[in-house]
Each structure stands twice: as structure tokens, then as C-alpha cells.
């Protein structure tokens, strides 16, 4: 029982953390709360679905296609939408209207391109891992969780050791100082946005093999991603990962423990979070006041 809950929590947490990473990266670089993050995730899922289920290409190709399509989309959105609006608006919050508009727009595009039906692709690997009936988990879930963890590790290494990653961290720390030190702020904002969108697309591609994907998943996914970065602290990479795993764990525990009381898991999670934020407004690892 216990093992099963923990395993489910880790599996959920790995995907959640990956979603939160993209959102927090965009937030830390541009101070933009990307409302369209959930829609980007759904879009990524549909790209993989199209490549794998309709064109009959291997799953790896589908994942790559999701990554590339979303990265390009992210870069274009930053260059032609966010950059001009940020430059001209009097208040930072104006970007939220833009982000919400983009979320609607992506919803409309997804509806027109892919329809409103639930879509999925065949399992990547078959079989179920069974440890003495104490822990049961299909192999494909284990594979997806492992891939997600590998992507998280890869992302951290990239941010830590590559030149681009260093530049983006400098930008997140202090935009002005980074600019004075000769960092090409515009270029790295664009790369960062592309990277964040790419991560969302990759999770979509990974999950389409298990839970499938549909149009309605965008909004709720965004809300969950907001939760995670609130728990961990907005704009902090370690915080996003912690937030993702904590939310995954809480969901897994809640669904088992609170099952007797009806569908109250998320109510309990929300209320807990509000009490937590009242005590520690910046989340676990965030800087005070973002």
C-alpha cells in the first residue's frame, strides 16, 4: 500500500516537475506568467499523436517533433508578441492579458487542427511490473517517469554548465546587470521562452502515450503548474522541481487517504497551500516578493 502510493507520487511528480520547470523558466526570465502553458502542453501531445498514430512514425520521432514545434512556437511568441508588448506597456501585468489571449488562441488552433476528441497513441512498451502485489506499475509508466527524470537532470546540467544556461541564470538574477555585462538579453529571452515551451511540449508528448490528450486539459494543467511553482517559489528551478514532486505526492496520498470522503483531495491541497502561503508567501525556495 505504502509503496504503491509512493511510486504513484514519484511518477506523477516527475511529469509535474517537468511542466513546472518550463513555467518557472519563462517566469524567471521575463516576469511573465504564462497562462498558455497548459495549452502548449496539449499542443505537444497532439503533435506526438499526429506523428505516431497518423503518420505511423516511431515514438522518438514524435517526441522530437513535439520538442521542435513547441520550441519554434515559443520563440515566435516571444519575439513577435511578448517583446513588443513588454516594451510598450505601462504596467507589467499587461502581459497577462496577452498570455491569456494566447491561451485562447492556442485552444482555438488545437480545436481546428486536431478536433475535440480524446486522443492517445498505443503503448510504447507492454507488460506490468509486479513486485509481490505490493507495488504494481505498468512498464510504460516506469519508462515515461524515467524519461521525465532524465529530462529534468539534463535540464539542470544544461542550466548549470552550458554558456546559454549561465547566461539565462544571469538574466534571471538581474536583468540589468546581465545586460551591462554584455549578455544579449533579447536573444536569451527568446531562447528561454523557446526552452520553456519545448519542455511543456515534451511532457505532452510523453503523457499522450499513457493518459492520452484532449482539448480540455490545457486550463487545469496551467492551474496545477501554478500550484507547483507557488509551493516551490516562482522563478526558482529547484523550487519548481520540489513543487512538482510535492504536488504529485500530495495528490497520490490524498487520492488514497481521502477517498472515503469523496472528491475532496484538491480542496484539501488548495486549503493547505493557502495556509502555507500565508505563513511563507515566497514558497519553499523563492526569493521574497519574487
Amino acid at each position, binding site marked *: 500500500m505504502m509503496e504503491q502510493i509512493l511510486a504513484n507520487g514519484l511518477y506523477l511528480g516527475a511529469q509535474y516537475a517537468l511542466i513546472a520547470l518550463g513555467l518557472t523558466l519563462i517566469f524567471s526570465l521575463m516576469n511573465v506568467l504564462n497562462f498558455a502553458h497548459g495549452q502548449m502542453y496539449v499542443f505537444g501531445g497532439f503533435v506526438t499523436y499526429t506523428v505516431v498514430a497518423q503518420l505511423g512514425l516511431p515514438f522518438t520521432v514524435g517526441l522530437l517533433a513535439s520538442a521542435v514545434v513547441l520550441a519554434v512556437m515559443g520563440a515566435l511568441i516571444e519575439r513577435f508578441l511578448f517583446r513588443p508588448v513588454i516594451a*510598450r506597456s*505601462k504596467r507589467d501585468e499587461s502581459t497577462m492579458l496577452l498570455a491569456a489571449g494566447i491561451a485562447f488562441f492556442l485552444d482555438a488552433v488545437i480545436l481546428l487542427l486536431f478536433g475535440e476528441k480524446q486522443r492517445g497513441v498505443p503503448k510504447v512498451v507492454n507488460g506490468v511490473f509486479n513486485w509481490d502485489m505490493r507495488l504494481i506499475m505498468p512498464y510504460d509508466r516506469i519508462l515515461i517517469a524515467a524519461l521525465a527524470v532524465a529530462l529534468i537532470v539534463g535540464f539542470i546540467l544544461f542550466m548549470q554548465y552550458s554558456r546559454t544556461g549561465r547566461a539565462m541564470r544571469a538574466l534571471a538574477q538581474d536583468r540589468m546587470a546581465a545586460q551591462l555585462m554584455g549578455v544579449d538579453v533579447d536573444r536569451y529571452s527568446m531562447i528561454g521562452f523557446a526552452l520553456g515551451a519545448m519542455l511543456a511540449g515534451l511532457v505532452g508528448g510523453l503523457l499522450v502515450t499513457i493518459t492520452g490528450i484532449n482539448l480540455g486539459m490545457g486550463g487545469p494543467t496551467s492551474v496545477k503548474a501554478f500550484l507547483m511553482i507557488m509551493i516551490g517559489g*516562482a522563478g526558482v528551478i529547484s523550487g519548481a522541481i520540489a513543487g512538482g514532486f510535492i504536488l504529485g505526492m500530495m495528490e497520490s496520498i490524498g487520492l488514497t487517504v481521502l477517498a472515503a470522503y469523496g472528491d475532496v483531495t484538491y480542496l484539501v491541497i488548495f486549503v493547505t497551500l493557502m495556509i502555507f502561503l*500565508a505563513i511563507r508567501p515566497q514558497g519553499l525556495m523563492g526569493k521574497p516578493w519574487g
Partner: protein
Amino acid sequence: MTDQTQSVPQSRLSPTRLVGVLAFLVAVFVLVPAFIALTGRWDFYYTLTSVALLSVAAAGVWLTFYIGRINIGQGAYALTGGYVSAILITQYGVSFWLTLPLAGIFCAAVSVLIGLPILRLRGVYFAMVTLVLTEVARLTALALPVTNGAKGITSIPLPGELSILGLTIIPDFATLANPKLAFYLMAAVLMAVTYLVLWRIVNSRLGHLCRSLQQNEELSASIGVNTAMLRVLAYAISSFFGGLAGAIFVAISQSIYPSSFVVQDSVNFMLYCFLGGLGYVFGPMLGTLLLYFGWDLLSVAKQYQLLIYSGALIALMLVLPNGVLSLFDRKGGRK
């Protein structure tokens, strides 16, 4: 910084401004009913009633923007207000007209309790918490016995007669030949009063204090402004408007469900404020009219409705990032 310059002409009731207000009132109370009677587009009443009510709730959101907080939780208060009214009417037989202020006051009280801790948050943190608040309200409505879960509360009677000392002020809606017109007039009156109140607040001492909060909270606290009290006060007024609008919506649809107001609605309230312009008292009203009415008119585009709507939204943002009313800035700031 943006509002200081614009508030100066606003605070004086110049002749041109008076004419503008009169023209607005004539348009709302005479021209619109006349137009609908002539064209026979009775469905416009429902749309315009919704616009008026939504703009009341949006006025509240705008006030929280005015103290520098991004409020994406108005849906929670609209839902709460709706449930308070529905429960009082169906289970305790209270008159609709009495439940209206009660719903508003209940929401204001709840918002004080919630606001005390969460108003310490700023920027996106506050925005995200309020977003979650809408979900909390929905899930609470699903879980509580008094709200009747997912089945909601249905067949709520229409607003009854309102009379003082036997003198009928508002007739029983059920006896009216045209309750649509009655609802429209009620919503329009409420909207006019709400924006009058909002305009008074902004141009009072309270409004100036709110602006100081928007610009720099530390500085404002350091010169003796009770920022904590002010924040809660603004948030409570905002939630009052939300509850009021929610209660009337329930009276119109005669039913309420946990999903009557969802995250999407809360986001929409925020969008109405942005689109009209955060620096203008009448911004949320215009934003609501443009977005809600525009969405309604675009239904002729069928499956491309959302695409055109969101495309227009993005384009407007690119052209006028400070709201539609910023158009008038260059001409000396009319509205």
C-alpha cells in the same frame, strides 16, 4: 504614475463630462430599449444584462488592480454570492431584495478573512492564489451539503415585490409581461450606481491612498498609511461587487451550480479590466462590453469564433497595450 495625470480631469465635473454622463444614461435607459423594441432583437436584453452585471463584478476586480494586486478570484465571490442568495431564498424564504445586500456583505466578510493572510502576497503570487481561490469555491460548493453538490439549486423563484409601507417600489417579476426588460433595467441601474461609487472612491482621499499603494507600498507605509487596513478594505469592496453580481445572475437563470462561475470567468473579469485600461474608471465597463458583446456577435463565425476572438484580443494588445481607453490619452483624456 499613469493614474496621477488622468485623475486630475476626472475629479472635476466639467460641463462636457456632465454631458457625457447624461448621454451615457440616455443611451442605457432610453436608446437601448427603444432600439430593441424597434428591431425586435429581444435576445440582446439577455446579452446586455449580462454585460451590465459582469461589469459590476469587473469593477471590483479593477479596484484591486488599483491597489496594485492582480485579482483572478472574482469568480469565487460571484459564486459565493449566488449561493448565499439562492440558499436564503429557497430554504429560508427570504425576499430576493434582502438577499442582495446580504450576499454582498457575506462575500465582503469572507474576503476579509481570506484577504488578511493572502493580501500580504504580491505580484504573481497573489494572482496565482486568487486563481486557486476560484477552484476552492467550486470544490467547496461540490462538497458541502447545503449547496446540494453537483446537482446545484434549481427552480429559484423570480424576484418578488419590493414595497415600503404598502407602496410598491418594484413589482413582482413573475407578474410582469416582460421580465427580461425588468432584469435589464435592474442590472443597468446597479451598473450605473456601482460605477458612480467607484468613481467617488477613486476621487476621494481613499482613492489617493490606494494609488499610493499601487506605486510603492513601503513608501506609503513609511509615511503613515495603514496599508494592511487599506488593502483589506479595497478587497472587501471588490468582493462585495462580486457577490452582488453573482446573486443577480442566479435570479436571472433561476438556478446555480458549482460550475456557474469557474476559473475561466475569473480570468475573463481580469481581461475586461485590462482591455478597457487599468488607469480608467470606466475601463472595465468598456472592456466587458467589447469582449462579451464581441464574443456574442462573433457567433456567426461558427467554428472560427474563438480563433477570431482571441486573434483580435492579441492584436488589440499589440496595438494598445495600455487598454482601449488609452486611445483618448493623446486627445487630452476624455473619459
